[in-house]
């Protein structure tokens, strides 16, 4: 799966499942500041990723993820 395809799927999850405004979801968007996903919300996002891509994400892997782009790259490396 290409990076842009992963991004489109991630965007779809954010918009459809989490109710985030579509225009805010860009590769540069910061999860906490721009998308208002707090520490509880991150757990939801991870669950949604795991279900969508049929993968498992460890907490340690999230340490360096603070933007949509970093999340997309992490997912891309795992699928």
């Amino acid at each position, binding site marked *: 799966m290409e990076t842009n395809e992963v991004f489109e799927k991630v965007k779809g999850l954010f918009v459809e499942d*989490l*109710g*985030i*405004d579509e225009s805010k979801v860009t590769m540069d968007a910061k999860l906490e500041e721009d998308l*208002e996903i707090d520490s*509880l*919300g991150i*757990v*939801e996002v991870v*669950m949604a990723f795991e279900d969508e891509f049929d993968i498992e994400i460890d907490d340690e892997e999230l340490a360096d993820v603070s933007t949509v782009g970093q999340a997309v790259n992490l997912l891309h490396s795992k699928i």
Partner: protein
Amino acid sequence: MSKRRVVVTGLGTINPLGNNVADSWEKLINGDSGIDYITSFDTEDLPVKFAGEVKGFDANEYMGKQHARKLDRSSHLSIYATEKALKDAGLDTKNRLGPNVGIVLGTGIGGISTTEQAVRTFDERGASRINPLAITQLMPNSSTGQVAIKFGIEGPSLTITTACAASANAVGEAKNMIQNGVVDMVIAGGTESGTTSMTIGAFSQIRALSTNNENPKEACRPFDKERDGFVMGEGSTVLVMESEESALSRGARIYGYVAGYGSTTDAYHITAPAEGGKGAVVAMQKAIADAGLTKDEVDYINAHGTSTPANDKNETAAIKTVFGERAYEIDISSTKSMTGHLLGGGGAFEAMVSVLTLKNGVIPPTINLNNPDEECDLKYTPNNAIKKELSTAMSNSFGFGGHNGVLVFKKD
């Protein structure tokens, strides 16, 4: 030193009758029922297929999906009711209310629909798939916390869970907080959204609910011989309460006074009222005394009046014990006949009704009261509202657990 007087300056409500105060009041005095067949879930396997549901409210539309999906429905309703009440009180909802404003909300069962969903997910998909927001949605104090966050209420906060007396206790404790000078303003009320399949099923198991599936609008019939249980309802009602000085200094409109509060416990049985409503009697007496009144000065009683065989009989007996011969002269009504039982949201709704009854000089009726029980022989305002100038009102709320919360209101 005389006690500080406590006034109501704002009202907000969302309930089976309407999504604002004006619509709700109009339906109340017209004797319209807000009870109907349940539409929010499939009732095929349930013995009871009707309830008082809130209608025409879309939380996603009201607060945006990103925010709405983080909250249980009981919190959607309480945030909505609070916003309405604050605006009604002439307060700017854009500014944080700050540390001189407290919040006291009552709820019977908190975020029960979230609890049910989380258990289903756990059973079907395991622990790792449980909604990470489940705990923050299901805890009973969730609404209190969420309303405080939304409106920046930084003073003392309490969540009261005395079942069906919860929000009467909330209004009473808020009154005491203001009267004692803890803060000048308290957002007080209650919320409940327990119209779920498990809850309806479980209340049915204790034979507490009416099973009149043929005529839902006639199912709740307090004090009537044919009554066969209460009707589940959902909703939230919030009162902006403040010291009289605070209201006068900011030029706020005053609806009326929360003058007295009595709280007792039956300490007898977890669901059945003590014989003759012994605990209720003392709660009524304490509320009247707290208001600085005598029993001869109470003009109207908004009864707990659930439409269960036990409550209505014992509440009637308790009123007779408190008021003696005068019990037969006092105007009484049960507005649950129209809303159903809002559980933890009921006391605040009925506090609002009591305040409006005094202010508007109209007593809402007890509908479906066509054939009174012999043991229920007081003036329950059957089926039609009555116009009457009144000075004082009392509102009774009694909850499973044996909790009794009684409020007394004055017009001026």
